[in-house]
């Protein structure tokens, strides 16, 4: 992979509420290289959206960054003023949100909305900006783009609107594109089109993508690397093959086990619910729902154990002294595929 453009180190974010401080992000570290797609997987409340909002400087008013750094080309974004952030946001780091209706201005023609970042950030003359907007509108696959430049958001379907949102995000050729559940609101066939479009554009303009989702099927098709988040922490990260075929953390097992596939006959649900982050558990946050939990899981947070150069997992099961356990059948099957892949690679 290419040059490292983003490095997040020990990020901690709290939300101040009447009930006390919600520890939403608890010591999260990851990095992003040029041209790659990193998927952050987790349930709602796991902190995946908060993490990326902090990269954009879009945290809510009651959020406080308690510690850590977000290094973008070596500079800490968290230390920048709102004015400096406005120069980065939309130009170097752009974002696509889940709901394409609420992220477009309903009273503005879409041609103008796409051209706006060019005029603001790159000081392109209005007529030229509109011409470039037309180009990118064609690129994202809107039919009769010349005509549709003068339409308003409500005149487009959900899938088309998401294409427009992508056009706006990419018009300045950002270095990082953050996609926060960009296809959750769309139908499967439209989702497939949008995902293909994102992959195609990524190659064309060489942007890096942080892809946030809870849909492991989408991750399998999009990501180069995957980070799994739970209760405000990353609990496992690795290449897409390592996470899907050789997962180590019981929560990752649970996620893979509770997703139906076209061939699955049995779904193993994860029992219980995620912990309350007002008072996070001190050990492994997944311990209470984990059938493989050991005594130490409730007492001490496991460090990251190395599985390979690119694959790390935070579970005591990887400790050399841990008892040998047999993972669920589904995981055993996946590991067999992994072993076969490794054998054929060598």
């Amino acid at each position, binding site marked *: 992979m290419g040059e490292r453009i983003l490095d997040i180190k020990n990020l901690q974010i709290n939300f101040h509420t009447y009930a006390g401080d919600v520890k939403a992000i608890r010591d999260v570290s990851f990095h992003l290289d040029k041209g790659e797609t990193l998927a952050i997987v987790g*349930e*709602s409340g796991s902190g995946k959206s908060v993490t990326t909002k902090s990269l954009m400087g879009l945290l809510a008013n009651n959020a406080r960054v308690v510690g850590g750094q977000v290094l973008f080309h070596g500079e800490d974004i968290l230390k920048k003023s709102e004015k400096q952030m406005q120069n980065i946001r939309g130009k170097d780091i752009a974002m696509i949100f889940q709901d394409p209706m609420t992220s477009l201005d309903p009273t503005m023609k879409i041609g103008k909305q796409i051209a706006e970042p060019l005029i603001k950030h790159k000081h392109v003359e209005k007529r030229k900006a509109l011409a470039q907007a037309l180009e990118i509108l064609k690129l994202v696959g809107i039919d009769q783009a010349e005509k549709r430049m003068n339409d308003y958001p409500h005149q487009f379907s*959900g899938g088309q609107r998401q294409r427009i949102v992508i056009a706006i995000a990419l018009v300045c050729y950002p270095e990082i594109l953050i996609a926060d559940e960009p296809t959750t609101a769309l*139908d*499967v*066939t*439209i*989702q*497939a089109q949008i*995902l*293909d479009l994102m992959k195609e554009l990524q190659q064309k303009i060489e942007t890096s993508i942080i892809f946030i989702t*809870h*849909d*492991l*099927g*989408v*991750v*399998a*098709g999009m990501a180069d690397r995957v980070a799994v988040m739970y209760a405000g922490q990353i609990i496992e990260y690795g290449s*897409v*093959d390592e996470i*899907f*075929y050789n997962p180590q953390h019981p929560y990752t097992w*649970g*996620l*893979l*086990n*509770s*997703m*139906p*596939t*076209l*061939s*699955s*006959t049995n*779904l*193993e*649900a*994860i*029992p219980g*619910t995620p912990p309350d982050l007002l008072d996070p558990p001190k050990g492994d946050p997944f311990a209470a729902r984990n059938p493989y939990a050991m005594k130490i899981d409730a007492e001490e947070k496991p460090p990251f154990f190395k599985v390979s150069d690119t694959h790390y997992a935070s579970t005591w099961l990887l400790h050399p002294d841990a008892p040998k356990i047999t993972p669920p059948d*589904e995981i055993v*099957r*996946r590991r067999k*595929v992994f072993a076969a*892949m490794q054998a054929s690679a060598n």
Partner: protein
Amino acid sequence: MPENRKKVLEVKHLKQYFGVGKPGMVKAVDDVSFDIYEGEVFGLVGESGSGKTTAGRSIIHLYNPTDGQIIFNGKDVSSFKSKQDKLDFTRNMQMIFQDPQASLNPRMTVEDIIAEGIDIHHLAKDKADRRKKVEDLLETVGLNRDHASRYPHEFSGGQRQRIGIARALAVEPSFIIADEPISALDVSIQAQVVNLMKDLQVQKGLTYLFIAHDLSMVKYISDRIGVLHFGKLLEVGPADDVYLKPLHDYTKSLISAVPEPDPEFERTRKRVPYDASIEKDKEGQPRKLREIVPGHFVRCSEAEIPFYKERAEKYETTEQPLPTV
């Protein structure tokens, strides 16, 4: 075999149009027919705007169908005149809604929400009996007995959907329409709720109409599946057949777009594009659901039958690529 099983629900040429007589008339459901047998789960899949939710609502008579018949346990639902008939109907057919946030009254306690049906149908002898019934239901759906006195906002999405299920079960129905019951929930919770629904079905001998857009989940829970597109039923058949041996081009395209949690499979996946213009009937060749293989129907004209027969045969002779895990 389905032939000797009892039909619980027969939907015959159901049409549900909105804005009839106005220029913007929408044919949300257009001549849809299918049967549901006792004790089975019938999955209805389709994209947004396909009419799947409308179909469900017409069946339970939240809408008055424009045309067609809905025959439930041998009786035409629209012929019900007396209050008793209507009460019997609502007691036997219940619905679980998509959004557990919007479908529970925030001002009512869980006990009152669940017991509303019990009150209407006079199923409880006295207050203590009512309370006991509610508590038993809460336990059935995996909640605590003491949750009865709480309000909906005190629960998570998954728990709220369990309350919705308990409410549907309260009047001991035989048939439940579940309209996207899990699409608002998190992945790990989705499996919990679907497994709960599956267990309840077996325990209580329920029949489900399961409406959803998540194809892999529908396949997992359903015995038979109907594929709806632009208000028309394009394909009906056993769940495995529809998924592994789809006959209609639209079904093929839909299945080819379902993401699988398997990177190797995703890398080699071929998406099948679909052109909806083929759905337009040719003059003099009316299309309707026709049986191609026993139990597996596809919407086609008389002349198209050989084409689909050939397609079905091809599946028997060639292996289909499946995910590696």
